[in-house]
């Protein structure tokens, strides 16, 4: 990725953020219609993180994701139709309906997998970085995880291991201030995840996770460092999830005002306003993009709905290579 941001980049980022938002909103509707197989953890409100971060990736770069992974997938350019098909448990889904929302994977795009285990993907990212180095590739691995995951042992072991081996990993903590019902400060000592970088002698930085360009810049710097063989970095992107923890969640623990406040900092609206203000694009141009996005989502849903539920026989395949 280039350092300076072009108009095309900006419009593309806006498009991707809209795509994530629209995609996630539709999952709500599909769930009400009883079509989602299992659960889904929506990324609404956090779009700027995935889009900003993945925009700093080269084509050979890799990423690992979390239970809340749709945003990363879309930002990385996965096919929304196959994603939706997976969420509806259909044969044309990325995992043929076996993985569902929490396990969407597309190695052809360097997406090594969402993960149902909080903190589970972190050492896998480190391993991937170890592997690509052995293969002589210059790939960087983006490793996404929630602030809740930063209290897992795997976080600590992985940062330490990546740091002592100077591996090309960018650790991206998505601090949305809550882990299920747990408020950040109540369960996380030290007041900041970025600050934990000091324990491993690596750079740590807190970033406005609702500002796609700020995220891009921070990740791009960290990726450059990594590519130059200078080792891993830790970024804490502060944002918020607008929806309940998962589509299963009925109970809302978080204060209504807090949710309201964060909705006012909508990363998409904010970026829209900025693009218009900076005359990067007129409202109509953005409107066009929004329309295209809606169409893409409709197609994705159609694709998913047209795909059939898997035959029970497929349950017994692909346990072993």
């Amino acid at each position, binding site marked *: 990725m280039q350092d300076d941001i072009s108009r095309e980049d900006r419009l593309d980022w806006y498009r991707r953020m809209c795509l994530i938002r629209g995609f996630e909103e539709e999952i709500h509707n599909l769930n009400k219609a009883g079509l989602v*197989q299992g659960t889904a953890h929506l990324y609404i409100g956090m779009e700027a993180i995935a889009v900003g971060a993945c925009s700093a990736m080269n084509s050979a770069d890799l990423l690992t994701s979390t239970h809340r992974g749709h945003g990363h997938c879309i930002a990385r350019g996965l096919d929304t139709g196959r994603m939706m098909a997976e969420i509806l448990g259909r044969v044309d889904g990325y*995992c043929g309906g*076996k993985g569902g929302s*929490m396990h969407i994977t597309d190695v052809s795009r360097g997406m090594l997998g969402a993960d149902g285990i909080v903190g589970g993907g972190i050492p896998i990212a480190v391993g991937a970085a170890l592997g690509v180095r052995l293969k002589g590739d210059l790939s960087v691995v983006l490793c996404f995880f929630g602030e809740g*995951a930063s209290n897992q*042992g795997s976080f600590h072991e992985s940062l330490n291991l990546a740091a002592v081996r100077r591996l090309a990993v960018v650790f991206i903590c998505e601090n949305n201030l809550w882990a299920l*019902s747990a408020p950040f400060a109540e369960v996380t000592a030290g007041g900041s995840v970025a600050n934990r970088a000091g324990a491993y002698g690596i750079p740590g930085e807190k970033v406005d996770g609702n500002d796609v360009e700020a995220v891009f810049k921070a990740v791009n710097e960290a990726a450059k460092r990594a590519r130059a063989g200078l080792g891993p970095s830790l970024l804490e992107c502060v944002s918020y999830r607008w929806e309940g923890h998962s589509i299963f969640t009925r109970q809302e623990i978080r204060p209504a005002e807090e949710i309201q406040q964060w909705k006012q900092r909508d990363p998409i609206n904010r970026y829209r306003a900025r693009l218009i203000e900076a005359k990067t694009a007129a409202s109509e141009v953005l409107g066009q993009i929004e329309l295209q996005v809606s169409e893409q989502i409709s197609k994705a849903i159609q694709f998913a709905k047209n795909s059939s539920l898997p035959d029970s026989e497929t349950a017994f395949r692909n*346990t072993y290579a």
Partner: protein
Amino acid sequence: MRQTSYAEALNEALREEMRRDPLVFVLGEDVGRMGGLFKVTQALLEEFGPERVIDTPISEAAIAGAGVGSALVGTRPVIEFQFNDFMTIAMDQIVNHAAKLRYMTNGMVSVPLVIRAPVCGGISLGAQHSQSLESWFVHTPGLKVVMPSTPADAKGLLKSAIRDDNPVLFFEHRLLYAQTGEVPDEEHLVALGVADVKRTGTDLTLVATGRTVSLALRAAEKLSEEGIEVEVIDPRTLKPLDTHLIFQSVRKTNRLLVASDGWSACGYASEVMATVMEHCFFDLDAPIQRVCPKDVPMPVAGPLQKAVMVSEEDIVSNCRRVLAT
């Protein structure tokens, strides 16, 4: 007697034991403010406060270790894991510490710790949220393993588990949480290590645990219409196993089927088979069989999940198979 759900029955057990003994306390992710992912710890925070109902960070290894440490100093922690799949992160503390400290110190210490966790699939959460790992713990000396199938058993067994001086792993089936049943109004304890005949019969013994007990009972009803009388035994405690009741039944029926939501290989069903084989071989008229989930991880899509999990039909057809030989 009142109709109570399995989840409410567990909640009552916790509340009663916490009222009875100020050293009983609860810790785990989202057990306080939220009342637990499956509502088993609901309203405990309000009654007992944040020192006895502890919302922890997402740190399963430390949670288990904190359970061991607090048990060592004489309190009685009850830990909740949101899914038993996450116990994989805490195996060192459970297996190398909780299970062994008493033995390693030749009885100097005890570890009165309860770990509760839901098992198995049924709501399309996939391979990392649908395992039924109880067999690992049955394998491990020093642990007790409990798996209730009814609200009354759930309450009575959890109260006994909390009073037990050993580490007890308490497995709940999430499809059972909403199931209701009669629970005695008065103090209700079910002793660990005592199996229960859930239905008497003469033609076949069917040992089933957790969710498979209700499938077994429905299967038995169906077969009864054809004049086949199945005896359904629920061990309730998987370790120590009440072999006496099982042997007695097998000696009467001469046939045995074992149903379990855990995988078959080195699983709980194979253990029951092996034990009965050792002790009742000459009483058997037919090979013992088992009904377990298929030997694959749990898939998400409904039809796949259904194909993998144990069903009532699986049990019926396997009963027939055992009876046919």
